[in-house]
């Protein structure tokens, strides 16, 4: 059984889900501040048992858009999860599901009971795995200092605040406590596991606390006991702070609640819920209809969608409104389609726009092992994605290595690529090439102390200050205004951290691509453009010298004004 990912358009926003199996629907809800990734093991078990498992990213977490209009201020504590009610009604409507099981962990369990209470007509069973009972004054103490400010700072130190939090989740409960009574008796996870968790925090962003904080205050017997539909509470023996669950049981739950009492292993825990559903829901529940379309094709904004390619899915940002030949955006080595948004936005509504995350970059599936990353392989996947979308020809805007991928696409599938606009060009002398390969991409593999976060941040920041970034001599100075503020750097670093050391291979592919030779052979009209003063600007002349038939252009400082140059080229 293969889990597939989809976006579901609801009320102008997109909800991200993982879906697997056929049969009655079970909605899986994750703890904060994680995502549907958490529920993959449960989804597979449910699919095998004859259910449609739909693991949802809560709005604002994972890849789901934030709540439309933002999280409302001034809600009373017991209503803290109410803002998520409407999106879930809309989600069920969009999926064509009348009634589903709501199964959740922690925040997910809290929302399950809040939703079941407010919309009993949509809930077949409310299943609370990891729920508890905590009085408000107790929760005040537990949450004091639990949610530090992680607004991006120019020095990258907010990443250390994240790291501190994520690392200490397995050292103390709550993590910010430092006394003996709150110490957890665990082996510490290796750095890469801590890092994976950090990435979930980064996806949630600086508003990671919204549902998280609210869920602390809905873990209460009096709120949980309001549920009238059939419900379960899992008392899992393996839970570290099982006292919370016992407190809830002791509080007293109504007769519609069944307490499941699995043994200490993770399988036992999940199987208990699956068995319950097989017995009480599989034959009575109505099978979920097929998955609806991911995007609104008439919407004049970039929407995220998953595109099937051999072996998995690529994330794309697309807008199908507009007419004429689609424009395909291809990102730079450690980038993602997200970074092309501002470059592509002037075309939205005029021409169809498609920007994809390369395999193993951004949010796309890791379909290329590090050592298999090449410009040719990127091109194959981009072509496969266009085939899936049934796109017959494109104009391409490629950022640095994206331009190389475009050139390769034009060779692999003659006729597909009509024009290539390269935004910045990677062209190196032989001496530079070996120097770049040696210095440009130091390891950013997760370190136990989180130092790799500062390294990644510093690399991305220095890319705005020096060229190449590691040349901190006077000769390396990029004499431009430097966009090195926290909000600008943060999404770039996030892309880099998601990719990890595979970025070494992505850059190596770009550095070793025989650019001069390939440009010479290029039969498609090609524009090579850059901003005067940028580190790579001098490469335009190198490109022109190698291939006099290409066009070169200077771009203005403001990237929002670049489109005019591309439009002129695409129209020529």
């Amino acid at each position, binding site marked *: 059984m293969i889990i597939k990912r989809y976006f579901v358009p609801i009320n102008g926003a997109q909800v991200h889900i993982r879906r697997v199996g056929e049969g009655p629907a079970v909605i899986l809800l994750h703890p904060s501040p994680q995502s549907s990734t958490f529920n993959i093991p449960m989804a597979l078990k449910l699919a095998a048992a004859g259910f449609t498992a739909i693991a949802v990213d809560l709005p604002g977490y994972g890849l789901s858009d934030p709540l439309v209009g933002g999280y409302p201020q001034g809600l009373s504590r017991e209503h803290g999860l109410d803002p998520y009610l409407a999106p879930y009604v809309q989600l069920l409507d969009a999926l064509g599901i009348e009634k589903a099981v709501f199964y959740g962990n922690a925040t997910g369990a809290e929302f399950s009971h809040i939703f079941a209470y407010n919309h009993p007509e949509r809930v077949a069973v409310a299943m609370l795995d990891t729920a508890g009972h905590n009085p408000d004054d107790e929760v005040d103490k537990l949450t004091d200092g639990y949610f530090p400010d992680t607004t991006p700072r120019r020095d990258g130190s907010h990443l250390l605040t994240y790291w501190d939090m994520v690392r200490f989740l397995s050292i103390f409960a709550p993590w910010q406590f430092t006394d003996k009574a709150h110490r957890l008796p665990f082996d510490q996870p290796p750095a890469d596991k801590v890092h994976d968790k950090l990435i979930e925090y980064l996806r949630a962003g600086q508003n990671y606390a919204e549902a998280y904080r609210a869920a602390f205050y809905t873990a209460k017997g009096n709120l949980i006991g309001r549920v009238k539909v059939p419900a379960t509470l899992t008392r899992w023996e393996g839970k570290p702070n099982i006292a919370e669950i016992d407190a809830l049981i002791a509080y007293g739950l109504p007769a519609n609640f069944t307490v499941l009492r699995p043994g200490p292993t993770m399988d036992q825990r999940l199987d208990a819920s699956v068995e319950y559903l097989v017995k009480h829901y599989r034959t009575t529940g109505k099978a979920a209809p097929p998955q609806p379309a991911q995007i609104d094709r008439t919407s004049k904004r970039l929407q995220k969608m998953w595109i099937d390619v051999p072996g998995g899915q690529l994330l794309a940002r697309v807008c199908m409104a507009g007419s004429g030949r689609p424009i395909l955006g291809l990102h730079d080595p450690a980038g993602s389609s997200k970074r092309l948004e501002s470059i592509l936005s002037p075309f939205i509504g005029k021409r169809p726009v498609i920007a994809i995350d390369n395999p193993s970059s951004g949010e796309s599936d890791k379909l290329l092992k590090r050592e298999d990353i090449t410009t040719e392989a990127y091109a194959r996947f981009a072509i496969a994605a266009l085939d899936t979308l049934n796109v017959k020809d494109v104009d391409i805007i490629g950022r640095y290595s994206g331009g190389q991928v475009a050139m390769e696409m034009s060779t692999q599938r003659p006729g597909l690529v009509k024009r290539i606009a390269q935004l910045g060009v990677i062209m190196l002398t032989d001496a530079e090439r070996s120097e770049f390969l040696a210095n440009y991409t130091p390891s950013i593999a997760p*370190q136990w102390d989180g130092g790799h976060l500062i390294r990644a941040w510093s690399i991305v920041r220095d890319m705005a200050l020096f060229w190449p970034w590691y040349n*901190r001599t006077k000769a390396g100075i990029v004499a431009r205004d430097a966009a090195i503020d926290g909000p600008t750097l943060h999404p770039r670093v996030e892309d880099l951290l998601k990719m990890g050391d595979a970025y070494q291979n992505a850059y190596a592919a770009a550095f070793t691509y025989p650019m001069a030779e390939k440009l010479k052979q290029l039969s498609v009209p090609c524009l090579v453009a850059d901003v005067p003063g940028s580190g790579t600007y001098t490469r335009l002349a190198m490109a022109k010298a190698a291939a006099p038939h290409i066009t070169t252009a200077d771009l203005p400082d403001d990237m929002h004004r670049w489109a005019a140059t591309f439009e002129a080229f695409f129209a020529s």
Partner: protein
Amino acid sequence: MTPPLITKHFLPLADGHQVHYRRAGSGPPLVIMHPSPSSSASMTASITAFSDIFTCIALDTPGYGLSDDIVDDPTELWGYADALIQILDALGIQQTCVYGAATGAQIGIQFARKYPGRTAFLMLDANGDFGGEAGEKIAKGYFNDITPTRDGSHLIRIWDMCRHLSVFFPWQSTSKEGRLAVATAPPESIQHSVNDYLRAGPSYQKAYYAAMLLESWENTREVSVPVLMTRNSGSALLSHTDTLIAKGLPPNFTILRCDPSTRFKVQVEAAKQKLSQLSLPSPRPAPDDHTPASKRVQNFYATARDGQLRIRGNLSGKGRPILALHDPAGSAHLVESILTPYVGQRPIIALDLPGNGESDNVIDPANITSVAYAEIVIEALKSIGVREVDVIGRYSGGPIGMEMSFQNPALVKHLVLAGVGIYEGEEQKSLLDHYTPSIAPTWDGAHLIRAWAIMRDQGLFWPWFNRTKAGILWNENAIDVPMIHLRVMEMLKIGDQYQKAYGAMWTYPMRERLPKVKVPTLLAAPTWEPIYAKNGECAAIAPQCHTADLAPRMADWHQVLTPFFKT
């Protein structure tokens, strides 16, 4: 020209505070004042240049470097001018020449304005005109909060500032106009500035900010004494210096035009000429810095080899001095609370071992052993006239105390080994391999985070790199931010030499040496300590030693130590 012998001193003021300074040369006095937020250490080149013709008194500005903060109100730096009078009085200097760079220049200006009678002439360097508003503009975002935080992010905030001091002016600027056309400082020198910020602490902006607001033509031209003002074409502040000159300065100002290579030559020549028109007496020799001025822990220096070791202590009181020796990568600060209950009763000495804390690195880096440390400590004690001591050695300080007793049996009368152990075989190998990863400065500042994480994890696991369930330390409070910060500061001062300092402890032949100890010895450890069991292991091989449990807080250890010292 041979480099002058620069000596460091703590100057006791009448109220018990201390000001730290560097001194070199002979002749009329020249007070040298540094830029913010560094210390007189950053003025070594100037001290060297001027010591040919002056007795240089290079001050750590109060609140910076190792000087106590004796200034209540930093507004317009008048308080610093007043502090300088206190200092001159303590040094017995009636009239002096003054040289100041950056903040030091602004303090010099205020001093000369307020006390023209005490100022022979004033030399200004790296000064200019920001105009009132420009100063405010520069200051906006200039001063990060560097209060220690549990995630160590304050260290990265400091790194960001220090690094970008050589990238933009002001450092927090991001505009093309603010970009400095120079190579970025290498990591080692950035780390040097970071250490200055750490010494100055969260109030590092005190004189810095006041100087920034003051830096103007309107204020500078008020100086009435003769002024030699440097215009260095390589200065990051050149445009501001030129603005000041262009606005017009009174005739008592002489502009010294130079570039970085001619700077000192031009300055010394001009000063020499000025001096020839004056007759200024030389100051008296440096006053003794270990005369206790008050009943509290004070700083003073001992000498050993060709350098100075910093002591925190107090030599008042009766009887035999008590010496406390700190752990690897530590300093006197980490053991002085053992001694504070004795202040005024017995002389106390907590000494920074060579290369640690504020002591010169007079140990041979190729031979860092307990034996070598002991030799230097004995020499240092001799330099301050101490003939016998009771020694308390914390962790690695224990073996050093033992070796002192072997090298000079008459010197050591009692020995307290607080937290020593036998490290052998697999355990020794694992500690040598993993306990001290490199914390050498890296271009991105990530070494700061490593240092922080090591010290923080020392409160969470034993050994700190054992992050399994078996390694958990069940402490009452696992994360003590001010303590971690202090330990990280000391660790960053010693740098990678800490690997050898720890190595000396792990490889010390305790099994062979401990049974040979002759002086009355107490094996003692607090029961909370993860290596508490090692105290018993040591006692088993050295039946001549006494044993004791120590209280959780060092400040309470005297309850056990005092009776032992009487045996």
